[in-house]
C-alpha cells in the first residue's frame, strides 16, 4: 500500500539523512572518536564487540522480562485487592502512588545494602519502576465493568468467583494490557538505572554496566553501541507487547480493530 510505504519510508529517509550528516560532520571537523564517534565507528564497534555486548544484553533482558512478569502478576493482584472495597483502596492507593513518584535511584542504595544477590536487587528496582501503571490501569478497568452487566450477574446470583472471572477480568483486560505496554519500557529503564547504580561488573554484568564501563574508558563507540542495542531492545519490547495486546483483544476491543473494518 502506497500510504503505509510512505509511512515507513519518510521517517527512515529522515533517519538516514541524519546519520549521513552526523558522519559527514565527524569526518569534516575531524572529531576524535573518544569525543563523538560517528555512525560508522559505532557500527564497527557493534560488529567487533557484538558477541560480548549481546551477552550483556541477555543479562539485562533477563532482569527486564522477569521484572515485567513479576509486575504484571503482582500489579494485577494488587489492583484486584484494591478493587475489593473502597476502604481498602482509600487506605492503600496512596502507597502505590508513593511507589510511582519515588525516583528508584534514591531507594537503590538501601536495597543494595539489604539484599546481597545482585539479580534480586535489580529485579526489585526494575519491578518498582514498572508496577504502578499496571496497578492503576487494571484498577480502572476493574471499576469500568458495564453496570448493567454487573446487575445481570447480581440478578443471576453469580458467585464472587464467577463475577470475577467472567465479568471483571475480561472487562479489565484491555486496561491491563495498556498498562503492560507502558510498563515494558519502564521495566527496561528501571533495569538500566539499577545496573548503573548497583555498579555490577564482570562477565555477568548487564549492558548498561558495560555502557558505563566503556564510557569511563572513553570507548565512546562501544558505549554508543550499547546505547543503540538498548534502544532497539526497548522498541522490540514495545512492539512485542503491542502485538500481544492486539492478539488477545483481536475479536472484540476497539483498540485491536483493524483499520479497514
Amino acid at each position, binding site marked *: 500500500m502506497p500510504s503505509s510505504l510512505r509511512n515507513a519510508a519518510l521517517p527512515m529517509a529522515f533517519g538516514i539523512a541524519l546519520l549521513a550528516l552526523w558522519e559527514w560532520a565527524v569526518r569534516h571537523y575531524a572529531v576524535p572518536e573518544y569525543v563523538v564517534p560517528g555512525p560508522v565507528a559505532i557500527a564497527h564497534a557493534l560488529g567487533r564487540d557484538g558477541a560480548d555486548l549481546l551477552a550483556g544484553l541477555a543479562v539485562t533482558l533477563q532482569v527486564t522480562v522477569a521484572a515485567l512478569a513479576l509486575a504484571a502478576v503482582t500489579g494485577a493482584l494488587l489492583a484486584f485487592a484494591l478493587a475489593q472495597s473502597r476502604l481498602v483502596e482509600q487506605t492503600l492507593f496512596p502507597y502505590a502512588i508513593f511507589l510511582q513518584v519515588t525516583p528508584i535511584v534514591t531507594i537503590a542504595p538501601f536495597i543494595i545494602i539489604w539484599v546481597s544477590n545482585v539479580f534480586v536487587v535489580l529485579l526489585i528496582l526494575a519491578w518498582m519502576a514498572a508496577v504502578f501503571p499496571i496497578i492503576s490501569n487494571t484498577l480502572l478497568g476493574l471499576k469500568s465493568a458495564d453496570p448493567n452487566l454487573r446487575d445481570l*450477574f*447480581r440478578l443471576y*446470583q453469580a458467585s464472587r468467583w464467577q463475577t470475577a472471572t467472567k465479568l471483571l477480568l475480561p472487562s479489565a483486560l484491555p486496561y491491563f494490557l495498556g498498562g503492560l505496554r507502558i510498563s515494558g519500557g519502564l521495566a527496561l529503564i528501571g533495569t538500566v538505572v539499577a545496573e548503573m547504580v548497583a555498579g555490577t561488573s564482570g562477565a555477568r554484568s548487564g549492558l548498561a554496566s558495560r555502557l558505563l564501563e566503556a564510557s569511563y574508558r572513553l570507548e565512546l563507540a562501544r558505549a554508543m553501541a550499547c546505547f543503540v542495542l538498548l534502544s532497539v531492545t526497548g522498541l522490540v519490547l514495545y512492539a512485542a507487547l503491542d502485538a500481544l495486546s492486539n492478539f488477545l483483544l483481536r475479536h472484540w476491543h476497539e483498540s485491536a480493530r483493524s483499520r479497514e473494518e
Partner: protein
Amino acid sequence: MSGTTATASAVTVDHVTKVFPSGTEALAPIDLSVAAGSFVSFVGPSGCGKSTLLRMIAGLVPSTSGTISRAWPPGAKGIGFVFQDPTLMPWATVAGNVELPLQIAQFDLTAAARKEKVMEALRLVGLEGFAMAYPRELSGGMRMRVSIARAIVTQPRVLLLDEPFAALDEFTRFQLNEDLLTLWQKNRWTVLFVTHSIREAVFLSERIVVMSPRPGRVVLDKAVTFVAPRTPALRDAHAFTDTCAEIGRSLGNAMGEL
C-alpha cells in the same frame, strides 16, 4: 388486590414506595398483582418510576416500604431480564453470551446439553447462523435478539424487559415486537414489559398499566383483549387504534395533573 387468586399470581406488589436517597419520591404506594403467564406492559412518561418498579420487582433495587412477593425462584432459573441496551459481553461470542445464565446457575447439564439449549434459544430469535459471531459484528437489532435469547435460554418463570426496543429504528422494532409476541404466545412466560411506546404496549400486552409522572402512581389498569392469535394486521384494526387512543388520553390526563 385484583381478582386473581394467590396461586395464579406471579408477583404481588403490596403498598410499595420508593424514595431515592436524594429525597426524591419516585413512586407513590403501588399495589398490583400480575397473573402467572400474562403479558403486562407498564407505560408512562420518562421519570414516572416504571423502570424503578421493574428493577424493584427484579430485586435489583430495594423498595423503601411495602412488600413484593415473587412466585419465582431467585437467580437465572427464575428470571430473565432484558435491558434497554443489549448489555452483551463484547469479549464473548453470541453463543458464549447466551450460555452465560446456564453457566452461572448450577443447571445439571452436560456441555453438549448446554450447547443444545443455546442453539435452541438462538433458533427462537432467528440467529442460529450467528453463534460464533462477536457482538460487534452484529446490527443493533441482532444484538437485542441475542439479549432476548440470553433471557429465555433458561426457560425462566418470568421475563422482565426494560424498554428493550427504545433504541431501535421503527422497522426493526416492529419486527422484534412480532417475534416477541410469537415467542410469548408459544411459551406463555409471565412477561413484565416497560415501554413508553403506546402502540408497542397495546400490540403486545394482555394488560396495560399506565403510570403518572413522578411520584409514579397507577392511573389506569386496563385489560387488552384482542382475538388470539395476534398478527401484524392487528395494528390496522379499529379496536387497536381505539385502545391506543384511550391509553393516550389517560397518559395525557396524567401529565395534565402536574
